[in-house]
């Protein structure tokens, strides 16, 4: 969603593009000990009605007095009236957001960036691969797809985390497991205790890094789109693995996140090579990523 470049010479009524919308926290879910999901509702009814976004878009969330941080919108556009963001406690703003409670005010600027090409995915098999907090942007698309389930053929979700407690959206993963119209595979890098092992194996969880598990489940590439998100190192090896499973590069979609301040192509820091992640991304196909200079990632 980007307003057309106003060619009118009269600049007086230009709106302040740095002004966030005010939102109230209506629920808080602690996914892991350092990752939290906030559900935000618009304080202003007009803004609430006018707001729409597509899965894959992101926004800048303000903790006033501390600054702004960029996260994806982790809820699906099909869920009306609220948006969700999932973030890890790493710096000044995320700590400030973490200290807020239900009823407190958070600023939100967005939605920015492009989105997952959901129309191209219609009628196709979908293979979601999410690593750690990388599952957050995917969940927006997964929920969106599941709300239109009939328009897509087979769906497989492969999600991994460092340990069992590091999984985010644990409740939803159990829900996906119980569904018959999708296949869920979950894996952890390592288990921490024999008791955990028995319980993990009981719910047929696997052990091993995502690329290895991907090789094990050996998904067929025909008529299938792979949507990948996770830490840079995981994306790198997963894309290689998908290539081995002869997924063509334009059928592999990923979403990147760089440091951002403005979110609309002016503050000059989110580019990889000539591409601005905030304007021409964050969603790219592996083909597009191949043309970018690898040493700028």
């Amino acid at each position: 969603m980007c307003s057309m470049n106003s060619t009118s010479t009269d600049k007086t009524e230009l709106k302040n593009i740095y002004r966030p919308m005010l939102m109230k926290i209506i629920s808080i879910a602690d996914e892991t000990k350092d990752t939290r999901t906030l559900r935000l509702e618009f304080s202003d009814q007009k803004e609430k009605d006018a707001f729409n976004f597509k899965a894959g878009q992101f926004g800048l969330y303000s903790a006033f007095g501390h600054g702004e941080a960029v996260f994806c919108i982790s809820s699906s556009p099909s869920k009306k009236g609220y948006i969700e963001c999932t973030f890890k406690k790493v710096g000044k703003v995320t700590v400030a957001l973490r200290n807020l409670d239900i009823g407190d005010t958070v600023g939100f600027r967005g939605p920015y960036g492009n989105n997952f090409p959901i129309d191209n995915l219609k009628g196709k098999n979908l293979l979601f691969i999410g690593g750690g907090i990388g599952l957050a942007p995917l969940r927006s698309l997964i929920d969106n797809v599941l709300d239109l389930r009939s328009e897509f053929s087979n769906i497989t979700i492969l999600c991994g985390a460092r340990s069992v407690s590091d999984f985010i959206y644990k409740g939803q993963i159990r829900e996906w497991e119980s569904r018959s119209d999708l296949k869920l595979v979950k894996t952890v890098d390592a288990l921490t205790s024999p008791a955990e092992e028995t319980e993990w194996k009981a719910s047929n969880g696997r052990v091993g890094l995502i690329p290895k598990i991907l090789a094990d489940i050996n998904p067929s590439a025909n008529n299938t789109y792979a949507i990948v998100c996770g830490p840079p190192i995981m994306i790198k090896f997963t894309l290689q693995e998908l290539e081995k499973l002869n997924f063509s590069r334009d059928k592999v979609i990923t979403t990147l996140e760089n440091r951002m301040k403005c979110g609309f192509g002016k503050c000059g820091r989110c580019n990889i090579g000539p591409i601005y992640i905030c304007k021409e991304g964050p969603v790219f196909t592996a083909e597009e990523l191949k043309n970018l200079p690898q040493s700028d990632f």
Partner: protein
Amino acid sequence: MTTNSNQSNQNANINYNDLQSEIRHLAKDLLESKKVRIVIGYGSGPLNSKPVPVFITDANDVDRLVYNEFCFNNLSIYLTKAEIKAKAPWAIVVKGCDARSVIGLVVENQIKRDDVFTIGVSCNGVKLEGNTLSKCDTCAVKNPSNINVNKVIGNIKTASSTSASTLDKELEQLNKMSAEERFQFWKNEFDRCIRCYGCRQICPHCFCNNCIAEKSAPQWISTTPGSRGNFAWNAIRAFHLVGRCVECMECSRACPMGIRLDLLNHYLAQEVRDSYNFVAGMDLEQKPPLTTYNLKDNQDFIK
């Protein structure tokens, strides 16, 4: 770019051409004998005669090395850069003031003394846009033989002038002013700061890899270039160098806004000399004063 013609190279009792060829000769031996892997020196720059730092790793390239009265950079800054630290052992061309920085880096365990071969070159004051820098007025290390350098080139004989330098005269001016006037002077200076951090990036002793100005939790120094953030930044930068700054005054030269950092550095260095009889970068054995203590330190300002 050829270096200066011969005549303009004669400067008092120093022949820059001889020094230059000696440096090249020595650099060639050091590289060929594999005693060092890189020689950090001055080369001719793209624009007029302003020399630039160059990094020679191949013995046949030594002729790129130049030496003249415009070599104002303090090359020891590069001994703190990760890319160059990895290429130890190094040789480095140093004037007296720069040699003191190398000693300072060794004393603070940033580099090992045996890893660096310092080529101490005589210097009769460096020129910037035609006039000699004020730091050179009372420089006592024009001939770096009294500093722990591996090799001394040239033996310039100048008695270090005892007359007060322009800096000292300006300090007297400042000390005559009232507290409010001095505060106004420094506020005006620091208000012009554009927070380019040139003063930090060029200082060999500002080697913290996570400077306090880059810490945001809590935000000790406001990053907005306004009076409050600028005053705090300049005060804390100067204070973190107390007893460590060798007065090479590169920060003052690098500052695009011409803020009088040299006055602040010179004042603090003098206070350190008066209180602890310590001059930074002169002695490998002595620790910087604020990193040690003495039971009989002055405490009459403490109630």
